[in-house]
C-alpha cells in the first residue's frame, strides 16, 4: 500500500514538472477507454486478491521459515538472474544482428526467435532434452568431451528458463534498436570508434531503457517458468526445485501452503522489479 502512495506522489511531482510544457487542461478521459481499462485492471488484479484473501495469516510465520520454501525461493531468484544474464549475453547480439544486418532469411530468423513464445513450455523442455539430454544431439558429445551433463542440474534449470525467456528480451531489444537512430553509430565511427566500440559505448547506452524493459520481462518470465524446467531439469529440492515447482507440488497436498509460497514469490518478484525500476528510471 505504501508503494502505491509513493507512486502517486511521484506522479504528482512529475505533473508539476510537466505543467509548464502542457499548460492547458486535458479533457476528461473518454468512458469508452476508461471502462475497459478498469475492467482490464480488475481482471488482472482480482485473482491476486483471491490469493491474498486465502492467506492463512496465523500460520504464516511458521510456513515461511520452512527450509524448503526458502531454498526454492533462493534457487528461483538465482536461476532467473543467471538465465537473464545468459539471455543478455546471447540475446542482445542477436537482437543487434536482426536490427542492423541485412541478410537473406532475416524474416525467417526473426520468426524462429519467437517460436519459444508459442511453444508449450513442456514441449520446449522435451525439445531441450532431445538436444542436451544424454541421448540428445549435443548432450552425449558434451558429456563425453567436457563431462558436462545438463538435465537434472541447476545449470539445466537456467537453460530451460533462458529458452522460454530469451524471446522477450530479443523482441524488446530489437524494437529499441530499430527505434534508435543508427546515425549515432555513424557519428561514433567518424570519431574513430570501431563498430564494436560504437556498439558498447553508443548503441547500448542509447537503448538502455529498452534493454532494461527486456531484461525485466525476461527475468519475470524466467522466475515463473514451470513446464520447460520440470521437463528438462526435473524437480529436486535445493538443486532444481524452483518456486513454481514447489507451488505446484504443494497444491497436491496443501492448498494453503501453495498459497503462501505463491505469495512469497509474488512479493519478492514485485519488490525486486520495483526496486530495479526506480534505479533504472532515475538514471535514464
Amino acid at each position, binding site marked *: 500500500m505504501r508503494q502505491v502512495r509513493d507512486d502517486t506522489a511521484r506522479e504528482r511531482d512529475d505533473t508539476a514538472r510537466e505543467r509548464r510544457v502542457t499548460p492547458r487542461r486535458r479533457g476528461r478521459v473518454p468512458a469508452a477507454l476508461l471502462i475497459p481499462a478498469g475492467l482490464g485492471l480488475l481482471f488482472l488484479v482480482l485473482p491476486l486478491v483471491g490469493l491474498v484473501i486465502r492467506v492463512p495469516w496465523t500460520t504464516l510465520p511458521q510456513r515461511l521459515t520452512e527450509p524448503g520454501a526458502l531454498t526454492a525461493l533462493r534457487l528461483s531468484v538465482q536461476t532467473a538472474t543467471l538465465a537473464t544474464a545468459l539471455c543478455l549475453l546471447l540475446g542482445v547480439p542477436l537482437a543487434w544482428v536482426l536490427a542492423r544486418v541485412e541478410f537473406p532469411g532475416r524474416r525467417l530468423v526473426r520468426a524462429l526467435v519467437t517460436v519459444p513464445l508459442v511453444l508449450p513450455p513442456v514441449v520446449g523442455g*522435451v525439445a531441450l532434452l*532431445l538436444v542436451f*539430454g544424454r*541421448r540428445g544431439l549435443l548432450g552425449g558429445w558434451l558429456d563425453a568431451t567436457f563431462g558436462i551433463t545438463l538435465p537434472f542440474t541447476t545449470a539445466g534449470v537456467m537453460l530451460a528458463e533462458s529458452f522460454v525467456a530469451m524471446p522477450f528480451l530479443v523482441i524488446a531489444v530489437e524494437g529499441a534498436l530499430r527505434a534508435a537512430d543508427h546515425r549515432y553509430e555513424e557519428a561514433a565511427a567518424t570519431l574513430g570508434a570501431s563498430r564494436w566500440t560504437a556498439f558498447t559505448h553508443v548503441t547500448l547506452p542509447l537503448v538502455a531503457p529498452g534493454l532494461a524493459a527486456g531484461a525485466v520481462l525476461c527475468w519475470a518470465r524466467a522466475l515463473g517458468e514451470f513446464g520447460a524446467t*520440470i521437463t528438462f531439469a526435473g524437480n*529436486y529440492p535445493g538443486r*532444481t526445485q524452483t518456486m513454481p515447482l514447489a507451488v505446484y507440488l504443494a*497444491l497436491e497436498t496443501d492448498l494453503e501452503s501453495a498459497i503462501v509460497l505463491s505469495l512469497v514469490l509474488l512479493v519478492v518478484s514485485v519488490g525486486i522489479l520495483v526496486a530495479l525500476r526506480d534505479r533504472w528510471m532515475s538514471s535514464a
Partner: protein
Amino acid sequence: MSARATRTAMAVVMALTVAGCGAGDDRATDGSGDGRVTGTVTVFAAASLTESFRRIGEDFEAANPGSAVTLNVAGSSALANQINQGAPADVFASAAPANMATVTEAGNADGTPATFARNQLVIAVPRGNPGGVTGLADLSRPGVKVARCADQVPCGAAARTALDTAGVALTPVTLEQDVRGALAKVKLGEVDAAVVYRSDVRAASADVTAVEFPESARAVNDYPIVALKDAPNPAGARAFVAYVRSEPAQAVLAEAGFQAP
C-alpha cells in the same frame, strides 16, 4: 536423432500436452426413475486410469443405451480440489485414499468409498535396460539415474514406503510431479530407471519395460471410487460405481495391469 527417438519424443509430447484436457459438457437429462440409466455421467478419474476408464465408459454406454460417459482425467489431488470447489461431477475415482479422504471429509461423497482396484509398484527401465537394473537395490548404485514421483503425489509416497522398507537409500535425480513425467524421462532415456505403477508401464509404449521387485508387495496402492453427493445425475453415478466393480470392468482393469482389491 534416430527415427525411434523422434517417435518417442512425439508420443511424450502428446501425452504431456493432452493430459489434463478432456472434460466436455453435453449433459442431457438426468437418469431419474425406473433404474434405467440415461443422460451424461461425468466421471472424475485419476490420470493413471485414463485408458482403462475410457474402455469401461464405452462398455457402460453400450450396456445402458441413452447414457453417455464424460471423463475428466487429472491428478487425484487436483480432481479432489475441483470437486470440493463445486465442480459438477457424478463420480470420483481416486488413485489414493488420501485424496479420497479430502472429498469425504468435506462431506461431498454419497456413501462410503469402495476400493475397486489396487496398483503395485514396478521399476520402469528404458528399452535395453542400459542401467542393468534387476531389483530395488540396483537403484542406489552410483551412476544409475533414477526418477520417482514427489512425496506429495501417491506414486511418490508409495515408492518412498517401498524404498524405506527395503532399506534402500536412494537419491533420485528428480522427484516428478506425476507418473507421466517420470515415464517420459524413461522413454527419452534420460534416466536409467523410474519407480512407477505397473499399470503405467503397461499403458506406456514399447520403449519402456517393467522390472518387478518383491518389496512392492509392501506398498500396494488402493484405488477408491465413490458417487458424489451433489451429483447432477445420481442414478447414473450409482450405476457407474456399481459397473466399475462388476466382472467385465474388473477384467479391463486387470488387463491394464491393476490388481483386484
